[in-house]
């Protein structure tokens, strides 16, 4: 028995309507078609949270107002519903700075644009923003186009660690705001070594009598998820056993069940052999992915 190390969310729980946060959503646009595909998602969220969208564009030269729509591939209607900021400096630093300054609830952006070859699913700007973000980030997969977006179904992969459980409460709140359903997905992979984090509750290694063990495990898994996600949201639990990587299994499940959002807790580590599940999901997700940064725990 031992003391459980403290795990704290990196930022406020998104959607939790904390009093100190203004209701802004930051959308970085660089003029690429991929980047602007984040806007319908941001608009859906802005409607949900009665938030204001701040479009951020960083470029060596300031864009004259009459060129904004053309440069950023926005319609006039889109432009008229947002606040447009043109900070200077390194794009990633400027976006993080803007999000901090406006106490943004979310950053909604494309994980990469056509300008560069993504590494592990991320472009260089997303890669630099992620470890420094003051709020959750929603990454919108390139190619989703300008279809309107609304939140009806959230897929919450949960590896049963307390770290990943940190995301349950804000995601539950998020879903409650939208009256969306939450599916908690636990993927147990053949290829994954046991997690050593205290409080982890993986699929049982010992299955003395399966007809007793499975219902007990499922009940305990949900009890823990509900306790962490207080006030208790209603969850549906799916357990998936896979022989491939966990990320691939989550994407496969998402493709079959068509959630509007996949929510992930992330331990703020993007070193080459870390965050493999997140990278895999970002690369192949059929829907936007919310990354909820968690500090205080080694990956």
């Amino acid at each position, binding site marked *: 028995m031992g003391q459980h190390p403290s795990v704290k969310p990196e930022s406020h729980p998104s959607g939790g309507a904390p009093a100190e946060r203004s209701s802004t959503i930051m959308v970085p646009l660089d003029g690429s078609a991929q980047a602007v595909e984040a806007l319908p998602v941001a608009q859906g969220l802005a409607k949900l949270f009665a938030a204001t969208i701040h479009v951020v564009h960083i470029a060596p030269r300031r864009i004259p107002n009459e060129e904004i729509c053309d440069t950023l591939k926005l319609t006039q209607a889109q432009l008229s519903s947002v606040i447009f900021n043109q900070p200077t400096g390194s794009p990633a630093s400027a976006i993080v700075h803007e999000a901090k300054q406006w106490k943004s609830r979310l950053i909604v952006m494309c994980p990469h644009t056509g300008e560069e070859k993504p590494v592990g699913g991320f472009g260089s700007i997303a890669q630099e923003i992620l470890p420094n973000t003051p709020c959750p980030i929603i990454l919108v997969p390139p190619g989703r186009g300008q279809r309107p977006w609304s939140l009806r179904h959230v897929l919450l992969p949960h590896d049963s660690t*307390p770290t990943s459980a940190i995301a349950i409460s804000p995601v539950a709140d998020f879903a409650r705001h939208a009256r969306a359903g939450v599916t908690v997905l636990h993927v147990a992979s053949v290829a994954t070594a046991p997690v050593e984090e205290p409080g982890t509750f993986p699929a049982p290694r*010992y299955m003395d*009598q399966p007809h007793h063990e499975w219902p007990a495990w499922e009940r305990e898994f949900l009890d823990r998820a509900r306790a962490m996600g207080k006030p208790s949201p209603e969850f549906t639990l799916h357990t998936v056993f896979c022989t491939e990587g966990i990320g691939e299994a989550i994407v496969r499940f998402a493709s079959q069940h068509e959630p509007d959002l996949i929510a992930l807790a992330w331990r703020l580590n993007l070193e080459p052999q870390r965050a493999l599940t997140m990278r895999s999901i970002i690369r192949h997700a059929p829907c936007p992915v919310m990354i909820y940064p968690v500090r205080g725990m080694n990956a």
Partner: protein
Amino acid sequence: MDEDSPIRSSAQAEAGVTPAFRLIPFTPPLTIDPHWALVEEGFSLAREHEIESICTVANGYVGTRGSLAEGTSLSSPATFLAGVFEAGDEPAASLALVALPDWTQFRVVVDRVPLSLETGDILEHRRILDLQHGLLYRTWRHRDRTGRVTYLQFVRMVSLHDRHLLLQSIMISPENYGGVLAIESSTEVQDERMPRIQWLPKLEGERAVIVGTTTRGVTMAMVDHSEVRSEEGRSVERVSEVQADGLIERWACSAHTSEVFRFTRLVAVYSSRDTKDPAGAASEHLRRAQEAGLDVHIEDHARAWEERWRATGLEVIGDETAQRALRVAAYHLISAVNPNDEYSSIGARGLTGPVYKGHVFWDTEIYLLPFYTFTDPPAARALLMYRFHTLPAAREKARRLGYRGALYAWESADTGEDVTPDSAVAPDGRVVQILTGTQEHHISADIAYAVWQYWQATADEDFFVAAGLDILIETARFWATRGRLEPDGRYHIRAVIGPDEYHETVDDNAYTNVMAQWNLERAADAMEWLRINRADAWRAISDRLHIKPDEPTSWRRLAEVMTTGFDPRSNLFEQFAGFFQLEDLDLEAYRARTLPIDIVLGHERTQKSKVIKQADVVALSALLWDRFPYVVHEANFRYYEPRTAHGSSLSPAFHALVAARLGDIRLAAQYFQQAAEVDLATHMGNAAGGMHMATLGGLWQAAVFGIAGIRLRDDGLVIDPHLPLTWKQWSFGLQWRGRKVTIALSREPGSVIVDLQTGGPMTIELGEGAEKTVTQMEPRCRYIAHWTGSRWDEWQVKLQL
């Protein structure tokens, strides 16, 4: 160990109750021996359920999970009453152990806000399970959102001395503020998913009485008396409120800074299994308990625990982790049993959690019972009497399936009827058939084995003649009809499941058949012994059970032609007919998995492969070591161990046991650790639904039967030590036919000390093969033998104890 000093565990126990315990609960728990304490520092919500199981306080009659008194968003408080079952609400739900209203609920409300670990700041929080005295402590210093600091100290116990008595005491002190402290205690049903009982609460003066009756006709009564006093002697007025299925008591304490208040609660529990009037008995019991006073109960309880530890010992010098795992195991084994109750047994999770619903499996006889047989024979006897009393149900099951004799239930509850469900829903939504109830028949031989082992270890002839023989005979009769003599002249037992439940509907499972063969032989031996030694009883039993004169002979004949799958050329048992033709899989390739292998491979492929769920042939080595030569054990262990996936929590401990007997101390230590981690690892959550009792019993067997190499002889015990590298000294207590023996083994230099404390002379055989020595020991003497490097030296008698 110093040869001239008494064995430490015994000496500590001889000293009696540690004086500090007289003061409990009024002093901080600083005097607890850290080697006997399980400490949980801080608070981790995610781990609450497993900590609750680990911190259960129980006495075999009643068990209370170590839930936090004020509750959290992940608390599952439960108090189980052994042997009382109720059907669940769902149509297909089978009988489950009943949970009593939670008697431990308590909260402090400051300025209308209840103190909670989930709000404000935790300045200090620690739970200590004192394994030595069966007490659960907790200290909690808490700062609320307005800066008020409150200090609380808790202690609770379920008395081992007086099994109907439960006690809770809490100290509350506002450290830096004054004002009104509201204290609330309640007794209510907490978990709605437990079987529902209609509880009727009422007040009788200052006592709260709660009575409930199961649909099976068992009435339970809890009588509770709580009070709050200030340290200055002021009593505080109480307001009681009866609710639908429980009651709440409230005290408003006008407190000044640092004032200390004490809440105490005494509860008496009875059921109609104990007496015709459980409410009256509980009320009277509580009245007497109140008169005696709190300290007396705590002292008696602590002394009862020390008495049990005196018989059990368990000290590992050099490996604190192993010692703690063994003491935790023994703590829960002691907590799980009630030697005074012949009509209930120990479920898979004891009284520590709801999973497995209190159902009793073969685990009890094969994994748990040896601990009791060798350290607490009356408890072992009571557990075997449960099987005697459930013989009618076992006979009925055999009859229903077309056999004679007794086929015990795979899952048993109160009457012994089989409560194994026929089907269940798999995690992927498929409805799967459950075949264990109709095919896993080795349980009958397992129970016969436990009866025989108990008789051999205790020489309890009264039990053997009055009850044990019935079990041996009726199980032998079952085996005599369960199989068939086939044209090859061999007796075959077809369509069974062995301990390796990955392979269903197999023919001639080696474990089942060898155990059946053994059962048939022992039943015949027993009848022969009875005829020669107790002719009167022989006639009576022959009449009562309608035993034909040639029946024992026919059992021997069937045993002789039993198919066992043994091949003398390879020394291997084939686990079942056709096993050697199955696909061989390299389990090393799946080592990194977190899932049971049958989930990884799928049901069909698992059935077609040589992957084994748990010790099966290896279990024969654990149980019947002296039946086969060393080379047979070696060959089978080396063949089956790499093919065993340990998908059952029962498996690692038996592998540790057999590996140790084979002298493979590296592998033994590895499996011992794996078994120890089943409930104590912090990153698997295995214990959430209760402690794995069979693993705990297996762990003790691994240490005593494996590492110390203890085996039974007709006239005494064998010791064949194989200590892991980290175990410098290993000592423990045993009982054999009325003698109390303490055995201490040292690694470097190798030595064995045997203290024969009471009873008559007995034989000790030391070592294995050509190096062994056999000596008759006299009581009240200490014997010491040294390892010379190639053999054990002659025993020296050092002193009269």
